[in-house]
């Protein structure tokens, strides 16, 4: 069901090319969306999957298990059911498509509950201490992505 929603959102946005606001204004790195993907690393560097796992689990950072089940992490308590299980997700999506979903899922599904992890503008009534800040830094996105890329079937 969730996958179908992505696909539908995708059709409407096919061929879309969008640019994020400049880094200095938004607190977010600049990136380019093409073919429903962000193909280039946000930092120009590769991600570190080890650190990515930490950010993925950290409840004040990715907190990804709040919404997703990951079978290989069953030593961790309280996996959520709000999103689809992430097992095998890297076999279903290309790296750039996954980067886009972590940076801002709303580009492919405008009604999603999943937070945009690398977006600082266009948000309503953000608490002062988070204002102008992204949930994850550009390098943290790359690190989480490197970890998610290990979730192959």
């Amino acid at each position, binding site marked *: 069901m969730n996958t179908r929603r992505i696909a539908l959102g995708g059709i409407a946005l096919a061929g879309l090319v969008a640019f994020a606001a400049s880094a200095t204004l938004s607190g977010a790195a600049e990136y380019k969306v093409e073919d429903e993907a962000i193909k280039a690393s946000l930092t120009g560097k590769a991600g570190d999957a080890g650190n990515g796992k930490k950010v993925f689990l950290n*409840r004040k950072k990715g907190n990804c298990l*709040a919404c997703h*089940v990951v079978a290989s992490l069953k030593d961790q*308590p*309280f996996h959520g*059911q709000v999103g689809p299980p992430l097992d095998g997700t890297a076999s279903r999506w290309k790296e750039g498509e996954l980067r886009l979903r972590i940076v801002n899922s709303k580009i492919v599904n405008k009604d999603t*509950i999943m937070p945009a992890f690398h*977006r600082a503008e266009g948000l*309503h009534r953000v608490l002062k201490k*988070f204002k102008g800040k992204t949930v994850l830094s550009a390098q943290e996105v790359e690190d989480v992505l490197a970890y998610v890329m290990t979730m192959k079937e």
Partner: protein
Amino acid sequence: MKRKALVLAGVGAAALAVPSVMTFAAEDFGKYQVGDTRSGYTFAKVETRAIQDDDFENPGMLWVEHGEEVWETVDGKAGKSCKSCHADASDTMKNVGSTYPVFAKDIGKLENVENRINRCRTDNMKAKPWKYDSRDMLGVVSYVKRQSFGQPMNVKIDGGAASWFKKGEEFYNQRRGQLDMACKHCHVDNAGNMIRANTLSQGQGNGFPTYRLKWQKPGSLHRRFRGCNKQVRAKPYKTGTDEYLALELYVMWRGQGLPVETPAVRN
């Protein structure tokens, strides 16, 4: 403090590594379900429901009892108590819990029970208004709403209330905060799903003030709104403000037909 994280791990909840998809079909929730509308009671654990159901065990009843005492206590320069004007609450207050917030013509505004009580205190008793989540306010609100216990929620959304209702609906569906979620993302789209250790409910308001086991005390509906706003890293409004009054009307309307449960018990 830990509430900065999206959702706290449920206090004392059994560790559940990978939850299976829930099925509700078999359970009959009786009066706590009306069509597709379900009270938070139906999402709560069986043990939590049992505490709510037993008047002697339900800790919220201590606030109802405190409220009854305050109801009869003279306060303020006019030398009056609530009872001086309203006599027997079981008679004069019996429809309040199921019909508030209401549009009050004399002030030209929507008014909930807390704000109505403070208006009585300042105008009729010449007494100081209470803080929103103070012991006396929670007590009297609990006592007053308890007089409607079991009655189906039945708020009016026409007439003077119509524009407030519309604002409440907009609030409910508006994304906010760094995590950019609206009420509806959790309580409409995901009711029944686990988010971390919590089962998301429909976010109904029929049980307030609700005793929270996590806080070891009851809280107002507006305090809950503040908590849900802060969870998504959004700036909350103050309790009792127009924004939350409008939201209260919309939330109560979502629960039309559910019984007044005050004082409900939740995690």
